[in-house]
Every structure is written in C-alpha cells, then in structure tokens.
C-alpha cells in the first residue's frame, strides 16, 4: 500500500508541474459554462415567444374557496373532469389547473396548512406565466402549501417537446465528450507515454508489485480526470439556471440536492470507467500515438452512446447496466428531472464493477513482457 502512495505522489508531482495538464483540468468546466450559457441565451430568444403584457392565462379551478376571486386574473374554463383538463395542459390548450382541497374549510387557519395543487406545462410560455401568477397569488395569501406532494408531477410538460429533447440529449453528449477528452488527455500520456519513454521498464525492475503500479496509475489518473469532471460539473451547475431559465421556467425546472448528488456520483463513476478502458488501451499501445489511435474510435462510440439516450425509451431499468449507455440514460434522466434513483444506482454500480474488472485485467497485462516491452 505504501508503494501505491509513493506512485500516486509521483504521478501528482508530475501532473501538477506540467502546466498543459493543469489547463486540461479547468478548460472543460469553463467551456461547458460558456457553451451552455450561450445556448441558454440563444434558446431563450428562440424558444420563448414574448407573451402579451396583458395576456390573461386560462385556468380550470376546482373548489375555489368562497371569498376568493380570480376575476380578471384568469380566464376560467370548465371541464368534465381533471383528466381532460390535464390533457389540455399537456397539449397547451389550457394554461393551468388549480385544485383546492375539499376539506379546505375545516383546515383553514388550522395547525396544518391545506395543500393546493397547481398543474402547468413549463414548455409553454403562457402556462409558465399563468403558473407564476397563481403561485404569486397563493403565496400572498400565505395559507397554503403549494405542490408539496413530491411524488406527483405538476409540470405536465410534453416530454417530446423540442426543449426537453435538446436538454436531455445535448448535456449527456457534451458531458461525455468533455469527460472522455479529459481522460484521453491523461491516460495515454501516463501509460503509453511511460512505455515509449522507457521509464515503465525502470519501474518494472523494482520489487513493487505490478498490481500496485496499476492501482497507483488508475487512482491518480482518475483523480486528474475527476478534477476535470468536477470542473465540468461546476460548469453545468453554474450554467443550468441559464439554460433552464431560457427554455423552461426556472422555478419549474429546479433541481434538488438529491439530483446534484446523483449527478456527482454518476460523473465520478463514469470517469473511473473511462479511465480504466483508456488505460487498458494505453497499456496495449506501444506509444502515445498508437494509444490515441486505439482510443479515438472508442471515444466516438462513447459519445454516440451518450447521445442515444433520447432514442432509447428503456422498457427495463436493467438497461442502465450497459456501460456508458446506461450512464447516459441516467444522466439525461437526472437532467430532465425524471431520474429513477434505481436506474442511476445501477449505472453507478455497473461503472464501478467495470472499473474493478479492468483494473484486474490490467494487472495481468503488466506481468506480460510482450505487452509491456513492446517496441
């Protein structure tokens, strides 16, 4: 274990004395932020038609308490039942539906605030406007809990809407390509590069166990790629409000702490999986150039898998176990606020198992003179 630390330390010293490498860490985050912010601005201009200043949103209200008036604020429509109203919200024919509880009178001014449900469609500017008006009104009364039931979906956004597609497709793709390029920047250099420069053989004649060398490499390379992944992650967090503020109503598309945790864990596991595949390929290659040649096609596959997520409507949650494809699905799930925690967990577990298997494989490869001393 001491040797693993010695090797990790050496990798860190080498990495952080190389300015190019340090730049590789922070560039992806900055790029993501710049690209997403631009995209957000662009999409808000494109996708959000201005609504009239005196537009009156349409609303279907169930159980409006006596004494409350919405005259002039909403144009009231009536429906047979709430399902018909939901369908119209979904199709952008109705802006919002407000449901007051039947037991409202008993609970009013009581200990527990009664719950009011407000259904809307964040992809429609009119509906989003109507939603914000309703929320403002209800908040002013300060007598209700609004949409507090986390298990229910109040945003009846059409999931096939262009905006949702763009978000859930572009982010995994961009994220995957940035992470993959960070891994690509460190793995061949550190493994195939050492073989090429003849420093790997120097390490191999020391009594250090081959598994310790491999572990030291994978851990330190993952740290570098994770730093880069973390910078991408920060970039995403900083730019999401801009993105969602553009296409979606900010308040409707906000992410919970749990979402960020899932995203963070997922990114770390993706980085580990990518580093281990790239490391295996770099071990097979005799020099950096060959390693890049091996990795490039794989990188394209990975990015395409990250993109495929919109076209694959998974019927089974087990699809999350497929390396990279599953991670892409999990990521787009989190970003479209429709993540299944089980799916995310499966994707993370699959990545970790994948990494462990490849680490073992690599330790065996390090014992093979034909692989390690290939000229």
């Amino acid at each position: 274990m001491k040797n693993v630390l010695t090797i990790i330390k050496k990798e860190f010293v080498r990495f952080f004395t190389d300015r190019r490498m340090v730049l590789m860490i922070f560039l992806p985050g900055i790029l993501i932020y710049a690209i997403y912010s631009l995209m957000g601005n662009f999409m808000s201009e494109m996708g959000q038609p201005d609504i009239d200043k005196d537009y009156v949103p349409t609303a279907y209200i169930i159980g409006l308490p006596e004494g409350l008036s919405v005259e002039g604020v909403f144009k009231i429509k009536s429906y047979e039942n709430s399902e018909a109203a939901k369908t119209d919200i979904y199709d952008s024919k109705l802006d919002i539906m407000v449901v007051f509880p039947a037991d409202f009178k008993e609970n009013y001014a009581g200990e527990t605030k009664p719950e009011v449900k407000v259904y809307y469609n964040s992809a429609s500017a009119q509906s989003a406007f109507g939603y914000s008006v309703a929320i403002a009104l209800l908040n002013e009364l300060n007598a209700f809990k609004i949409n507090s039931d986390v298990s229910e979906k109040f945003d009846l956004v059409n999931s096939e809407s262009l905006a949702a597609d763009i978000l859930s497709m572009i982010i995994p793709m961009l994220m995957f390509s940035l992470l993959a390029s960070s891994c690509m920047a460190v793995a061949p250099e550190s493994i195939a590069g050492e073989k090429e420069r003849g420093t790997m053989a120097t390490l191999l004649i020391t009594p250090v166990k081959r598994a310790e060398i491999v572990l030291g490499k994978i851990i330190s390379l993952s740290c570098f790629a994770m730093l880069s992944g973390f910078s991408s992650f920060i970039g995403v967090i900083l730019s999401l409000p801009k993105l969602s503020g553009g296409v979606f109503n900010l308040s409707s598309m906000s992410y919970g702490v749990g979402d960020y945790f899932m995203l963070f864990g997922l990114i770390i596991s993706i980085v580990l999986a990518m580093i281990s595949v790239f490391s295996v390929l770099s071990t097979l290659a005799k020099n950096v150039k060959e390693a890049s040649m091996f990795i490039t096609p794989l990188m394209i596959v990975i990015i395409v898998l990250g993109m495929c997520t919109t076209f694959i409507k998974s019927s089974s949650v087990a699809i999350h176990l497929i390396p990279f494809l599953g991670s892409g699905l999990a990521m787009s799930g989190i970003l479209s606020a429709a993540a299944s925690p089980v799916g995310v967990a499966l994707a993370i577990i699959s990545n970790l198992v994948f990494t462990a298997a490849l680490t073992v494989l690599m330790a065996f490869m390090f014992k093979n003179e034909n692989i390690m001393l290939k000229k």
Partner: protein
Amino acid sequence: MEEILKVDNLTKSFKQSKKLFKPEKNGGVKVAVNNLSFSAYKGEIFGLLGPNGAGKTTTLRMLATLIKPDSGNATINGKSIVSDKEAVRRSIGFLTSELKLDETFTPEYLFNFFADLYGVETNVRNARKTQLFSKFGINEFAGQKLGNLSTGMKQKVSLVVSIAHDPEFIIFDEPTNGLDVLTGKVVTDFLQELRAEGKTIILSTHIFSLVEKLCDRVGILIDGKLAAIDSLKNLTQEKNLEDTFFGLYESVTGEKV
C-alpha cells in the same frame, strides 16, 4: 568461493516480426539465448563478451526478471528469477540504456522515489544520497530537471539511482556505451570500487579493452551459446583476447572473419 549467480540451461527465443521473417530459418523463431549455463562468484566482475545479436542483453534482461526464460532457470543469492522475482528484484541493480528516468524530475526526487520503492529507510537513504551525489558531482544539479542536464550527467544520475538500494548484485549492460572517455572512466573506476566492497557484478560488452581492464572472469557468447568461459588470465595466456575471440568465432560459426 561463494557462488552468487548460478545460471542453469537458460533459453529464450523470440518470434521474428513479419518483416524479418525468413521462412527457411527455423520458421521465424530466433533462439537468442540457447541453453546457457554459468556461475558468478562473490566479489568478482564477470564479463559477457559477444558480438551484436549474440544474446547478451537478452541474458541480462532475464537475470533482471524483465523477461521470462522459455526454459531453464537462474538463481541470484539463491533466489530464482522464475519463481521468486520479487526477492531477486530487491537484491539487484540493473543498469542499461534501455531503462530511462523521467526527465521532468530532478535527480534528488528520482533518487528518493526509487529508494522508497525499494523500501530504503529515510535516514539511510539520505546518507547514501549525500555520499553518492558528492562522489559523482551531482550535488550542484540535484535540484534541476534531469532533462536539462548533459548526457554524461544523466548517465551518472542513472547509475546512482540504479544502486540507490545498495544492491549486492549489479547487472550492467554495455556500461560505457555512448559515454565520453571522462565519464567512461568515472563509471569503470566505480565498478572497481564496488568490487572492492565485495559486490558482484555481471556486465556485457563487445569491447575487448573493457573486459581486459575490468573483468575477473569472462564468458564469450556467440549465437546464444557460451563458446568459452574462463578467467581472464587463462583466456589471454596463449594469445591476446582479441585473437582468442576470433578463433572461437570462426570455429563456432564456420565464418571466416
């Protein structure tokens, strides 16, 4: 005499790459080292003398556990290079131009790094570093990146780093290759000092004068086989080393030199 190295029927062949493939010759397999057996004793410098392609480097790489023999075995200090690699690695120092040091590090860092990997205690390590660095004039450059140093200085650093753990057995492939006469002398002087300290050294070369200057015993390697093995004194009794070598070469290969 205490036997430190015992080589026992060591054999290694390589598949020739397609470009070099000559179908008429052994189906594309090159026997680089062929049933090699010899011993080296404590406190001596043993020289493997042979022409290009004789199998010197291949033999030394097997002894250093960098590659595995196809068959046969060798023991260093009683430890097998096949079944007890880690113990062998711990007790040897291997120096060859094939093993490089990362040029982005300083000599100081590299010495510490490798000594640590060999498990040398910090105070022992530091004392040894001070001693070796001043002996080879590295002190002045200890904090500079290796890449910025001259070839001779790099070579000295490589030498010092390879013996950071004070090995009992030192394997040296072509010790003076690519060195100018001054650095070459520093290296050969040091090998003699190591012998005086009781270390055992095996080196390979194709330079007769180096063998005559340094070696106690010599194995003449031709085409993967030992054509002769004896003390330098016996080998040079009747004729000089060069003539002995050419005589052997002609009788082994049937080629007129």
